[in-house]
């Protein structure tokens, strides 16, 4: 990386005043390179995701099946009916859902870290996980006839928990202080987790179902889950990416941001609302997949550029790729049984993150 501005000619003292002379303009922040790399990773993850599994199917078969589902195109894939169904009904929705959830968890994590200026913030910080966990547990223990309500209950629990946290946290503390919001999140999460644990203990026969949901899984992925969460995640992603410059302004703190003419508390609540809605939708269909919201944004920060113009879009694409890959591991390593995907993200993600952190520190000190 060059450390000097490209400024042809010397003698800036005189050249500066010439109208036609070269003027020293700062280069714009570009996210293009990292985005291209991340898209490459995503493409690779998608190819692997649709071609790996118990049935031996190629990516070209997957492409042909996808083409045969295009509207107005009468294309015969030449793939057997069973294989086509495996691809279209099982693998593809699972890859797409994994991508959406991963993108949302990573993007939401990056946004929360920016808003709360806390590197350990993740999408679950303000009670999304605890609220969703309580909602899901309540439905599971209510009996099998309620299962269809599970995503709705998890979503409602998550949104309600964050709303309570935000209202309590922002009225209790000094105006504009984020610390009291974070602390309120800790308290709300502790309370909801206590209730959830109580429910779970009272219904020991459902323990495995509850626990399975909490560890996260994409097992039930169908197109209807994709359709269910897509609007929330799309809106959330658009709002977050649109705020990427303002997230950079928030990095210099509350006072500085306000003195730069930004209504920081308003920006903050907008970003938190968007990140929460999207995360709640993701959690509602996938359970509590941990760690994605922390390792993906930090890996992007450490390897490229800490500006949210880079971190936010690249985290989303990279998060999608990461979760698709993690899901491949979850369903193939001990095939035919599955490992909970949350176990995979932590098991693979944590050492990788430590490696990135370490190599970056070494690189920095030399």
């Amino acid at each position, binding site marked *: 990386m060059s450390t000097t501005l490209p400024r042809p000619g010397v003698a800036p003292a005189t050249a500066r005043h010439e109208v036609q002379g070269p003027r020293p303009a700062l*280069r714009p922040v570009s996210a293009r390179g990292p985005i291209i790399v991340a898209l490459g990773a995503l493409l690779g993850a998608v190819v692997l995701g649709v071609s790996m599994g118990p049935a031996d199917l190629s990516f070209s078969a997957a492409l042909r099946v996808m083409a045969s589902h295009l509207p107005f195109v009468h294309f015969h894939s030449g793939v057997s009916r069973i294989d086509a169904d495996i691809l279209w009904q099982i693998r593809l929705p699972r890859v797409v859902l994994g991508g959406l959830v991963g993108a949302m968890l990573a993007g939401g994590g990056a946004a929360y870290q920016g808003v709360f200026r806390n590197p350990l913030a993740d999408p679950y910080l303000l009670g999304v996980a605890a609220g969703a966990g309580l909602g899901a547990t309540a439905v599971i223990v209510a009996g099998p006839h309620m299962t269809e309500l599970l995503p709705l209950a998890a979503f409602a629990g998550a949104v309600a928990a964050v709303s309570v946290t935000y209202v309590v946290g922002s009225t209790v503390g000094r105006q504009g202080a984020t610390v009291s919001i974070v602390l309120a999140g800790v308290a709300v999460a502790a309370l909801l987790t206590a209730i959830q644990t109580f429910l779970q203990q009272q219904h020991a026969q459902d323990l495995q179902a509850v626990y399975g949901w909490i560890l996260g899984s994409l097992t039930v992925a169908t197109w209807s889950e994709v359709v269910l969460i897509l609007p929330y995640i799309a809106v959330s992603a658009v709002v977050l990416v649109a705020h990427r410059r303002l997230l*950079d302004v928030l990095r210099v703190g509350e006072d500085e941001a306000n003195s*730069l003419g930004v209504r920081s508390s308003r920006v903050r609540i907008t970003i938190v609302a968007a990140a929460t809605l999207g995360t709640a939708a993701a959690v509602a269909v996938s359970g509590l997949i941990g760690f994605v919201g922390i390792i993906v944004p930090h890996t992007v920060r450490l390897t490229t550029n800490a500006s949210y113009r880079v971190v936010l879009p690249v985290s989303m694409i990279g998060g999608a790729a990461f979760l698709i890959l993690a899901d491949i591991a979850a369903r193939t390593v001990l095939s035919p049984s599955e490992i909970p995907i949350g176990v995979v993200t932590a098991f693979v993600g944590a050492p990788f993150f430590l490696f990135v952190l370490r190599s970056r520190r070494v690189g920095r000190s030399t």
Partner: protein
Amino acid sequence: MISLDGVTVHYQSALALSGVTEKIDSGEWVGLIGPNGAGKTTLLRAVARLVRHEGEIRVDDVAVSSLTPKRLARLVAYVSQQPELPPDMTVGQYVLLGRTPHIGYLGFETAQDRRVCGELLESLELEAMADRRLATLSGGELQRLVLARALAQQAPVLLLDEPTSALDLGRRVEALELVDSLRRERGLTVLSALHDLTLAGQFADRLMLLGNGRAVSTGKPDEVLTEETLVQHFGARVKVMRSDDGDLVVVPQRTR
């Protein structure tokens, strides 16, 4: 340029500033002095509207309470005592933040904004560092950078809270000389809290001595920096002398 009329600030029940009234002319540099907790920072924050105030503060003949945050930020640039400097932000990115009041809510910097910032970096001798991370800069470089960010707002009023507190002696004088030349070049009005009384006397046109939230003495440096006033308000023994150049020198004395 700035007019303060009975400016009063409460922090919950504590009175931080009480009935401060003063007029500051365009192009003038007024130094705020006074012991810790006297209200210097509070007064600056009130003008930047970072704390609620009673009374009236007008900048360029407009009450600051009637302005949108964005319009205020185009009139007043504020540099806090310890600005947050994200270590992994680059110099260029940091200076560009100063253009925020000129950019729409979800907008981005234009080529014009980047040019303004590029020229500022050049005039503050930071242009070679545009791509460096803030963690790699020295104290003096960071001080200039923070000034560059404030100047990027192109506001006629500059509020500086202890702009030299983190610097060694040489860098202090350098930083204040820089502020002085910038304000002359650009016709800025400067209101700054200054810790070092000798430097305050050398650089500011006028000084305002705050004590317990009140403006207890305002005037030319030699009117405010008298042994009697300083002893009374700082609770320390001082000697005020003239150097060979005619500058006032405030020397603390041991209390023996």
